[in-house]
């Protein structure tokens, strides 16, 4: 037996079996989302008129605020990449985390694997942490693929448009790109709790589990909606708020779970 913590051993086993079992199929959604993002960015570069009026106005306002001293098309492109981009990735990452949890941990729980895992050399809390950690690791992997596609493709588009990032843009982008991580942790945490409590929750539907997950994704959705609805909002502050709210939600959730996590009600 190894001397590593139980949850770590178990989380690694879960990640291994998910990667082994689903392989490349795991990556179809992040690749698709990455292509969608690049499509939007490309459309902004080639013809900003394809964007909706509200989005275009929000981008123009943000461009005027943060990317002055350059032509308007370039500023619009940068606003799209630096301000909207990280939030698009954060929201997609949150949805990805729910999907990864539903199709992985959720299906395991529905099949009765919880009972089997609890018969292993682990405490119930270790099993819970392992389920969250395993699913979160997979979510990060998906977000990594999405990021690699979005940023790699963006770099190509920026090079093609002959645009280079300013120091301020790098700072905004860096902070923004941290947001998907705590958001993914929060949505993964919530999804594991939901699938533990309601193992038969389907991906779609209006069951209590779905409604809870929907409520959990709202902070991520608000990150997309807010900068469009209120273009003057400070993206740096928005990112920091998103990170803070997500981590606080995980903290509150963890305290609650420690109180109600009762194997009797879950088996």
């Amino acid at each position, binding site marked *: 037996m*190894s001397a590593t913590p139980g949850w770590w*051993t178990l989380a690694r086993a879960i990640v291994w*079996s998910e990667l082994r079992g689903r392989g490349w199929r795991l990556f179809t959604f992040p690749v698709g989302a990455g292509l969608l993002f690049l499509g939007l960015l490309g459309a902004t570069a080639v013809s900003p008129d394809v964007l909706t009026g509200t989005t275009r106005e929000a981008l123009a306002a943000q461009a005027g605020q943060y990317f002055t001293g350059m032509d308007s098309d370039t500023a619009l492109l940068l606003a799209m990449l630096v301000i909207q981009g990280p939030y698009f990735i954060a929201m997609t990452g949150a949805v990805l985390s729910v999907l990864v949890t539903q199709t992985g941990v959720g299906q395991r729980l529905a099949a*009765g694997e919880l009972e089997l895992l*609890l018969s*292993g050399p682990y*405490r119930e809390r*270790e099993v819970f942490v392992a389920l969250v950690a395993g699913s979160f690791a997979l979510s990060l992997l998906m977000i990594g693929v999405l990021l690699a596609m979005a940023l790699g493709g963006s770099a190509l588009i920026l090079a093609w448009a002959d645009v280079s990032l300013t120091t301020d843009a790098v700072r905004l982008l860096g902070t923004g790109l941290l947001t998907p991580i705590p958001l993914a942790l929060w949505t993964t945490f919530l999804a594991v709790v939901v699938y533990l409590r309601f193992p038969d929750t389907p991906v779609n539907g209006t069951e209590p589990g779905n409604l809870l997950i929907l409520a959990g994704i709202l902070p991520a959705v608000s990150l997309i909606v807010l900068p469009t609805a209120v273009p003057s909002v400070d993206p740096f502050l928005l990112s920091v708020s998103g990170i803070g709210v997500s981590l606080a939600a995980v903290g509150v959730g963890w305290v609650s779970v420690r109180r109600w996590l009762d194997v009797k009600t879950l088996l």
Partner: protein
Amino acid sequence: MATIEIDDVRLAYGDVTALDGLSVTFDPGFNVILGPNGSGKTTLFRVAAGVLPPDSGEATIDGTNPIADPSVKTQVGYLPHGTPLNGQLTVRENLEYWGRVLGLDAKTRAERIEETTAAMAVGGLLDRAATDLSRGQRQRVTITRLLLGDPGVLFLDEPTTGLDPSAARALRDQLDSLASEGRTLCYSTHNLYEAELLADELVLIKAGRVVARGRKEELIGRLNGDGAREVRIETGADAEVFDRIGVEVRDVPDGWIVTLPEAQSVSDLIAALVEHGAAIEAVHEEETTLEDLYSQLTEDEEVTG
């Protein structure tokens, strides 16, 4: 190899009491647990395997409480009702996964997979997808999975349910050989034939309590109490004749079942019946079966503990 002790365990799901001060010891060998649906068999296994903490009382594996020290659960293999195998993985990958869950290193995993698949005769299935297995094969694979950690105790909750007779027999034979290696097998079933065939020790549970425990012969002996036995008499005689002779009877088609005290022989009974003018067509000594025992113990009050 390992002994399980359950001491005065109580557990309730809301208002429903599943275990009501249950105490029992499982020693190495084949322990068969019988009881009606809802009697607490599955909950007993969950508590004994350290899956579920009891509300009060204690379960120990070789003296260690698995809730307080989960590392002792490496000595336990638990097969819940149903066979959860990951359908996206092959048999080898399913075993590999469970080896990782148990924290076995790569070398040990490979060795144990080879040994256990040979022992359970599933070596030929290793590269098959778990979804392609028959029910019997799936059950053998799930038990192989339990054996990866070389546990001294196996809890098997109705493992042959849904298997065809030949698959069930093959599985029973393999389990029997595991028990003969010194393991403690705790096996719940509704199949009395299986129970009779396999059990070194029988445990009957009713309403969350042990109502009888022991070898089949001992239990039947205790059920018969004073050594009384039953004799079926095919006769046209009415109950009044038996009243006059002073024996207890109950009505069956074509005659009566007589409960004969140990001191009275069948020939004494026949002689007394003839003396009272009864015409006797046939006499059969009835053997008390496990089914009789099960019916009586699960329907009546507690007989023994």
